[in-house]
């Protein structure tokens, strides 16, 4: 759990770093998520006050974008590309394999908290699919065996 004092002071620092910026909410939310791993509910009023908008508006933005999480993810985040060019190279059966292997569906986290599985719609690696992003790192030309090796290394 985050302690409130740290949360408030780090949020303040992030808000200060973006002060005066036009339309600063997305950059702020990206920084908050980079700092805490998700966008804590508790930080919303503080952000709203700094930008002079309502808390509901901040929440509306957080919930609109697929990237922002309202709760912490697992220790590792595996994003598998589900888009057409990767489909043409077997992305559907690869993701079925991954879901079976991890025992989770999209957007779920394994019970041991190790891996969160998410879909992504294109990583720009469309001529060497299926592609994935694992903890922010790109990988491509995946098959079941290559993915198993990668998943095996995640603890």
């Amino acid at each position: 759990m985050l302690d409130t004092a740290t949360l408030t002071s780090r949020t303040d620092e992030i808000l200060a770093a973006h002060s005066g910026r036009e339309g600063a909410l997305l950059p702020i939310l990206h920084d908050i998520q980079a700092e805490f791993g998700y966008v804590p509910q508790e930080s919303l009023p503080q952000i709203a006050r700094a930008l002079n908008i309502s808390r509901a508006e901040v929440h509306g933005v957080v919930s609109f974008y697929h990237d922002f999480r309202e709760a912490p993810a697992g220790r590792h985040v595996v994003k598998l590309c589900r888009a057409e060019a990767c489909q043409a190279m077997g992305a559907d059966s690869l993701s079925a394999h991954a879901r079976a292997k991890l025992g989770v569906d999209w957007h779920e986290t394994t019970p041991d908290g190790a891996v969160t599985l998410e879909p992504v719609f294109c990583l720009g690696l469309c001529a060497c699919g299926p592609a994935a992003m694992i903890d922010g790192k790109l990988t491509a030309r995946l098959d079941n065996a290559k993915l198993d090796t990668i998943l095996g290394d995640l603890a």
Partner: protein
Amino acid sequence: MKIYLPLDSVAVALGADDVAQAILAYASKMGVQIELIRNGSRGMVWLEPLVEVETSTGRMGFGPCNVADVPALFGDLSQHPKAVGLIDALPWMAGQTRLTFARCGVIDPLNFSDYTEHGGFAGLARALDMASGDIVAEVTASGLRGRGGAGFPTGIKWKTVADAKAAQKYIVCNADEGDSATFADRMLMEGDPLTLIEGMVIAGLATGATKGFVYIRSEYPIAIDVMEKAVVLARAKGVLGASVMGRGPAFDIEIRVGAGAYVCGEETSLLNSLEGKRGVVRAKPPLPALQGFMGQPTVVNNVISLASIPVIMAKGAAHYAAIGLGRSRGTIPLQIAGNVKYGGLYEVGFGLTLGQIVDDIAGGTATGRPVKAVQVGGPLGAYFPRALFDTPFGYEEFAGKEGLIGHAGLTIFDDSADMLAQARFAMEFCAIESCGKCTPCRIGAVRGVETVDRIAKGDAAAIPLLTDLCATMKSGSLCALGGFTPYPVLSALNHFPADFARVKEAAE
């Protein structure tokens, strides 16, 4: 010894960083002096990671390279098992007309003198000597149309912004590149970021805008990193700042990162997102050109549109306009993807037929099986069967076949593809990514998935329902997300009816 190895996402995803370390380690072990340059990609994805070694006859290529291939790079190069020959002589490179991508893969993306020595800033230098109206006229005369998908003439858009009276105007570069099968924006930003900056500065001079944004999708971490460094470099060198090149007006650029919403590639949704709001689509009018970012006149252009400006200004509108087909002037970076033997980026004048692209340039499928369908123009583009492979690559030509070229991505599918599943996915994608503002898109896409599922269960009566639904989405949606989802759906249905003729499962 000068060695090149791309920092491009494709190369990195396929192990380039490990190869780079191995090269440095081996060179130091052998006591060989080398300079390792992390360049952009040449666009030959099947050869990545592609190592290039500078020789007296030119740059020799080796790929796809893994760590085990490194020691042989320090031996007799002609004997290297991964040798592909001189890069410039490869048919893939020699067949292209590289204007926008002329420097991509050639130079060090973040080396300022490399950029200028390869023709960089020639276009900006010329623009700085011209009246703003003349720059706009030059862009109009080039025939350049927006490469983001809609194909709107860039010069006309710029004129609207130039003529608008406002204290503050903006140039917004759309680098959201959400379409599957497209990666031209990414490759350019990673491989030649200063070209995009130069194009945006020229757009500023032409329209009176002094501030630019590049809105890059969060799925592109390497492009974001390279662009941020390039902006810092351009500021340090006086290209950006209080006076462009020390003799122009002010212009500066800020990099912004998206947050995983496909619809934010739509220009009004993108503007809302830049303003820190939910990425919902705005009704047009007002046009962004008149009331865009923060209600001010704003040019919203795709990366490739803006990055084509420097070469147009440097070589002249006539040079650019002389290339192409019909009303599609200049070059287009084809992005050939999916189940493809030779996939990647191929910049060429408009006018090749789909068959020439798929069979001759791309060599058909990676699996070696027959090509069943090619989706052209991303998730909102139509599926083309072989019967339409004589369609020439151009805006009007594809529209004439109930399709679109979009951002020029092509996804090849072999004969194992199930076109009903592809139609279902098109609806599912629209449902996931809809901004929710208009009903035909938000509700229609959900009904679309259900209707395709009925057809899959053998309910042929659902086929006319699907067609009706598509007509409603096409005519009633606020933007092309709902409006164009019918393209992949109906093309799958019309060109591949056998895949929709499902037999009803026997009743229990």
